């Protein structure tokens, strides 16, 4: 009974983590950018969906769409206002661009977080779920919303896989992650590929954010922990490796759920952090990362 409960809850959480981390790792793989405003973009999506559905009353479906749209806009804004100027800057030496992108996106994330807190307060918000009710799965009373979350996450990740492996654009993205210079030699504009990747990222982060808002609820305080968990999942799986992140998301998700159920919810994040330190020590490139 309890084992099934852990299995089901863990799956939903892990799928959500996987979706959130996939976009993050995609951007790193393609353009070498670690986007520390990730958590802020997810929360922005959830809060926009909440505001649209609960305050303006446009309905849950339209609300969710608005949330994803806001995340898409926020992702493009991050790229054009923060990341691109730093990458193009001549005054910043190349070897320091990484730390500038980190600092810049971090500040950008704080700005988004503060704006959300200013306009929508710090209170936790739960987005109205698209499906309501409870069903019995293997003797566990499970909210339909939880199942919905897991299914959407898996579907979106499958779609992403198709997009990257089966379409021309996706192949260009894949090529850019392997060898950016080679891609430009083939006559593809690297900036266009980056724009596509940031677009995909925005949609992924938006869906993840809205689902998170329906499943667990968000507040502007969730920004830091969300970024940190995406960051650690991605490093655990190996920076830039999408399949590594998926595995890592399930490892972290189940580890957290197990701890929360069997030990105490207060210790939820500790085993995952310990595992992370351990993996960094014996295998610094992560589970599936390349050196």
């Amino acid at each position: 009974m309890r084992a099934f409960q852990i299995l089901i809850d863990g799956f939903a959480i892990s799928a959500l983590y996987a979706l959130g981390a996939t976009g993050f790792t995609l951007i790193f793989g393609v353009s070498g950018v670690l986007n520390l405003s990730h958590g802020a973009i997810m929360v922005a999506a959830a809060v926009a969906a909440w505001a649209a559905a609960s305050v303006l009353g446009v309905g849950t479906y339209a609300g969710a769409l608005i949330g994803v749209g806001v995340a898409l806009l926020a992702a493009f804004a991050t790229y054009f206002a923060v990341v691109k100027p730093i990458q193009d800057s001549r005054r910043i030496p190349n070897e320091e661009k990484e730390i500038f992108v980190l600092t810049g996106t971090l500040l950008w994330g704080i700005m988004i977080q503060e704006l959300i807190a200013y306009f929508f307060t710090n209170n936790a918000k739960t987005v109205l779920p698209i499906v309501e009710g409870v069903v019995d799965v293997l003797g566990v009373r499970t909210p339909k919303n939880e199942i919905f979350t897991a299914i959407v996450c898996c579907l979106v990740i499958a779609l992403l896989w198709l997009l990257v492996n089966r379409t021309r654009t996706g192949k260009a993205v894949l090529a850019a992650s392997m060898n950016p210079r080679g891609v430009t030699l083939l006559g593809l504009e690297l900036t266009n590929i980056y724009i596509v990747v940031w677009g995909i990222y925005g949609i992924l982060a938006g869906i993840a954010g809205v689902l998170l808002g329906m499943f667990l609820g968000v507040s502007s305080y969730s920004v830091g922990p969300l970024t940190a968990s995406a960051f650690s999942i991605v490093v655990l799986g190996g920076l830039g490796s999408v399949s590594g992140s998926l595995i890592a998301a399930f490892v972290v998700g189940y580890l957290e759920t197990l701890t929360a159920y069997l030990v105490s919810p207060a210790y939820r994040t500790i085993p995952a952090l310990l595992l992370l330190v351990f993996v960094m020590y014996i295998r610094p490139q992560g589970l599936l990362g390349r050196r």
Partner: protein
Amino acid sequence: MAGFFTSRLFFVSLVLVVIAATLPLYVSGYVLGLLTVAFYFGVFAMAWDLLFGFAGEVNFGPTFLIGVGAYTAGILNAQFGWSVYLCIVLGALASVVAGLVLALPALRVRGPYFGLTTLVAVLMLQNFVVVFADLTGGEIGLTIPDVITINAGANYWIALGFMTISAAILYGLSQSPIGLVLQASGQDPVQAGALGFNIVKHKLAAFIVSAFFSGLSGALLVFYFGTASVGTVVDVAVGVNVIVSAVLGGRRTVLGAALGAIFLIVAGEFLRPTGELATFIVSAVALLVVLFFPGGFLGAALSREARS
């Protein structure tokens, strides 16, 4: 090095310190209290700059070192009643030990991986504080019975003196041959190693020095506040402020980091009437500086002087 004592930077710093030292004679206790915190923060930022600006290591967890120093000093005083000065020294030493423990595994990895290791260290410390609430006071914070002094002027002078001495040592170190080796190993570790310098040893030394000053400053800060809490010395947000200070003031300048910290704290106070937007405005200004003046305040000033 000898050139420094005749340089304009030296005179400007000297004049600023002298002016700052006379402040308690004519400003209110409120301003002094604000600046006292800003000075301790300045030491955090300078210690961080030594590690990042010179050794090229992105340390996302300055508050791990600060927090260990602060909590060690606080716990020893609150739980065992040891004297303030002994606690401060032991706090700094604990921070050095913590720095070593963190540095040994962390220096095996580079770039983002190093950053994450240090970030995880902060999260672990935060969890530790919350889980062992009996010892640490948990989320509410630890109340510390003793303080160094309750005189605002004396506290201010202690902080100013501490910051000045730290700045002199850290700046001297950064301009010394050791600082140059650190800078070389930050920019091109392979080449620096090929020149025969032991990079790991130098980086470890930088880590220890950085940890010592962070811990000492953290310990002094808790005895000034009379309390140690996650929100003031451990939280990731505090670490972000330290990093932003150093980048704002100008990385690789050491002294700029202190300026950045003072600016950040004073600006935050001036913006208090704007309420919740204060953090937004400070972050936006910091972002603009990062985008348009990547050298920071002192970097921009120095390069203008070098050009003219």
